[in-house]
């Protein structure tokens, strides 16, 4: 669990080439690191700093701002149970308690086998489907406690191939050839934008 591997460095350089400033690729590269290791390791942050030419402190500053970048190892499946108002009214907290007991961990904890990490979260934008949760940010709707047990069993037995391991954003990755990219221009070369130029005082 460390620096980006060779394949990902190639990918990282492709991502960096999408931006006029290398630094702009910081967040996509943090996702890449999280996809590789399931979390963003310190070594990976240092590696990203080298790739986008900033200091590791700046990478850490960005990475730590976002809750969904995990800086410590988490389970293969991150289960986020909603306890916000709609879910709470329809049994979200009971669902969370059941999850705690079933998995034997408190929110924030990871099971010993490294399969599951449990979190309680605020609204995940599925109030009509309450109570709901996410597994690696994929929604599961209107869960009873039995549904939860079935979900966990399915995950353990590998039946949920639609849910990739923690860190994977999507299963499809776009590769846009250089000649088909929208005009990438360094902001310094853009000149004054029209909307701004019109407000500049006239030269005397």
């Amino acid at each position, binding site marked *: 669990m460390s620096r980006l591997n060779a394949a990902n460095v190639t990918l990282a350089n492709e991502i960096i080439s999408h931006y006029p400033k290398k630094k702009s690729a910081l967040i996509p590269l943090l996702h890449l690191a999280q996809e590789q290791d399931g979390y963003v390791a*310190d070594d990976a942050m240092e590696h990203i700093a080298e790739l986008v030419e900033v200091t590791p*402190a700046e990478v850490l*500053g960005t990475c*730590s701002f976002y809750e969904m970048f995990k800086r410590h190892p988490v389970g293969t499946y991150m289960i986020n149970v909603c306890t916000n108002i709609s879910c709470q009214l329809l049994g979200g907290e009971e669902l969370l308690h059941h999850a705690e007991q079933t998995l034997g961990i408190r929110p924030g904890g990871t099971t010993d086998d490294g399969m599951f990490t449990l979190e309680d979260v605020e609204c995940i934008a599925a109030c009509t489907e309450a109570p709901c949760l996410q597994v690696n940010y994929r929604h599961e709707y209107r869960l009873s406690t039995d549904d939860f047990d079935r979900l966990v069993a399915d995950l353990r037995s590998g039946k949920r191939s639609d849910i990739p391991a923690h860190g994977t954003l999507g299963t499809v990755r776009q590769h846009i050839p250089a000649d088909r990219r929208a005009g990438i221009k360094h902001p310094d070369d853009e000149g004054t934008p029209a909307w701004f130029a019109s407000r500049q005082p006239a030269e005397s």
Partner: protein
Amino acid sequence: MTATENAPATTGVPFTLNGVELEAKQGENLLDACDRLGVHIPRFCYHPRMTPVGMCRMCLVEIDTGRGPALQPGCMMTVSPNMVVNTESEATVKAQDGVLELLLINHPLDCPVCDKGGECPLQDNAFAYGPGESRFVEEKRHYEKPIPISDLVFLDRERCILCDRCTRFADEVAGDPLIHFVDRGAQTQVNTFPDHPFSSYFSGNTVQICPVGALTAKPYRFKARPWDLTGVESTAAVDATGARVAIQSSQNRLVRVLGVDSDAVNWGWLSDKERFIHEATDAEDRLTDPLTRDDAGEFVVRRWTDATKIAAEALQGPAERIGVIGGARLPLEAQFLWARLTDELGITSRDAQLGDGLDPAILSGAPRATIDRACTPGGTVVLLGADPKEELPSLFLRLRHAVAEDGVKLIELTPRASSLSSYAKARLYAAPGAAAEVAAAISTDASASVGGVDAQELAKAAELLGADGPVTVLVGRANLAETADLTAAALVALHDVAPDLAVLSGLRRGNIHGAIEMGLVPGSAEGGDGAAGKSTEAMLAAAAAGEIDTLVLLGADPMADVPNRELVESAFAAVATVVSIDTFNTASTARADIVLPAAAWGEVDGTFCNLEGRLSPLSAKVTSPGQARADWIIAAELALATGHDLGVGSLGEVRSAMVETVPSLAGVDFDGLVSDADGPVIGGDRAWSLSAPSVSVPPVDGYGLRLLVDRTLWDEGTMVHHAPSLAHLATTATVSVAPAVLDRLGVQPGDQVTLNHENGSVDLAVAADGRLPDGVARIPFRAAGFDAGTLIGEGPVVDVRLDRASS
């Protein structure tokens, strides 16, 4: 608090401040305008030298821009026409009260044990604008306290109010964003990346600008309380930038140095060297008594009268057989007296430089630039010398701001990429020995690469030099293993392309420019017999040849500082008498016959002349240890003892004599220097009169690598060595080469390699340095573990060969 009635009328923006109609300048920040007009708005995060961010919300004031009054942060507002500002309204007062209550929620009440207590903006503002009592009864946030974020700075995150000053400084001003906000919301904290400390040359500034006690500097922690401190304004004399400082002492010990904002020089910033080097003044092993040798050759303590008599005898030998080396440590007044004394004695061999500088003709024979000229927006700066970050760090900050923010175009004509290379518009990395050749090749229609520099870069440089805007060349000594004549030749070549250029001196050593101005340069003695005086190197060579009997060292340590080590050794072995006037035991005082203890920085009043020729005060704050005396008194006493009464009995009399006899000092008001934050510039108008010295550089021989020996900020220098907090920062000697050279050798960074040179070989650790061109090997000067001076001879360049270490 009300606005002053007699606010100066400017051609500005009319606005209303607390019911009074006033005018602000075009584009003036509201906080700046209020400060200028005498209305104080409390603030934490706002700093006039950095971008406003509106982090702390302390400067909320009621502002009406035509849409009704609303609370807005003053630091984020530019005064606009007819703006109505109320800093005393009920809403404003309530907002200030509320902001302070929130800021104090997590702030520990450990003021009695906090270094900032007594001078803390948070304390002051809480007292003036705060609620007085907190309604917060819950547990405060806790962090481990304090944590070291660098060798010099400690961070107490509990006290931090997240004003973004230190992090902004690190990013915007120093360009070392090694501290950053980490986490967010209530957990937000300032921190470094694990195992990447805030090792910036400028880290001490964050301590000075921290508005609470979150950042504290190791050298000052728990040393004094603010109300015990007394202070005086002075000038940092550790390098030639001459940054303005306030020095503070408690119980007759220097405890703290703070940067003072001088528009013309340092903008309030200091390097850690300037900030913490005062520890050396207080060091244990200062020279405290005059010493002479007894019959057995051991030092014996003498009274001043006896020691002066013995030293005077040494000075009264034949004038052409006496050499005076050094003087850059001395204040201007002492330099003046030494110049007068050597004049009287007819000594023409005197040189304040130690063979590691430049021909003083470069400074007298070219128009002189100020820092402000170099930093004029739209101008061009050529770096012809060492990395300013390593040698003149406060100047580096000004230059960095100029090239990063003000559109000043930078041309590097250096042996390796400098600390400003990411901003450079043309990069001419000339191999050692090739600088003059490369400079001569600068042309818009350059078609071939010269000295390792691409034709494209040469053309770019020519274009920049021909553009509008002033051209300033920062001339220094980039490479101690290369003759200074090459730098002079390169400057002349640059002048051919840009005839209007001005020179900003990059000579680094303390008050060197004062010494040159006062005439401590070879051959400028008035009463001499017309024989040209010798430079330091020539004096040492003459001493080695038995042509000089007496060497006088004015705060100089040639044993360590003259690049050519072999030359110094043979000179010291041959010379009969060495008189050393110094503050510390150095390698040279150990070899001296007469040692006179001098007062150090912070112990004497005087005047400093920086690299622009700008005068600023040096102030006494503490008393000297033992019998150490001010240099001007030593000079005056020696003059009396040699029968040449200089007629000066006080510093004031010395200054009067200076104003009368030195043309460039005519009309200078020495007593007014303290209150003048910018200070007068002397010796201004100079016409171009340089011609290129001819140097022939041999082709690279079988050894294969050209040697680059340059300085780093933290070295084994006498002052750094004697400052306990800084001594351990000294660079360790390694030989660094471009990564490609490492690959060719088949070694890894950190491996031992054998460095072969003319006089033998030595094993050193090797390092990779991507800033070096191929074909160059770099060793830092005065680094711990190896003396690079042993490699430097009399040739124009030095070639070495690297091999894998045999073992």
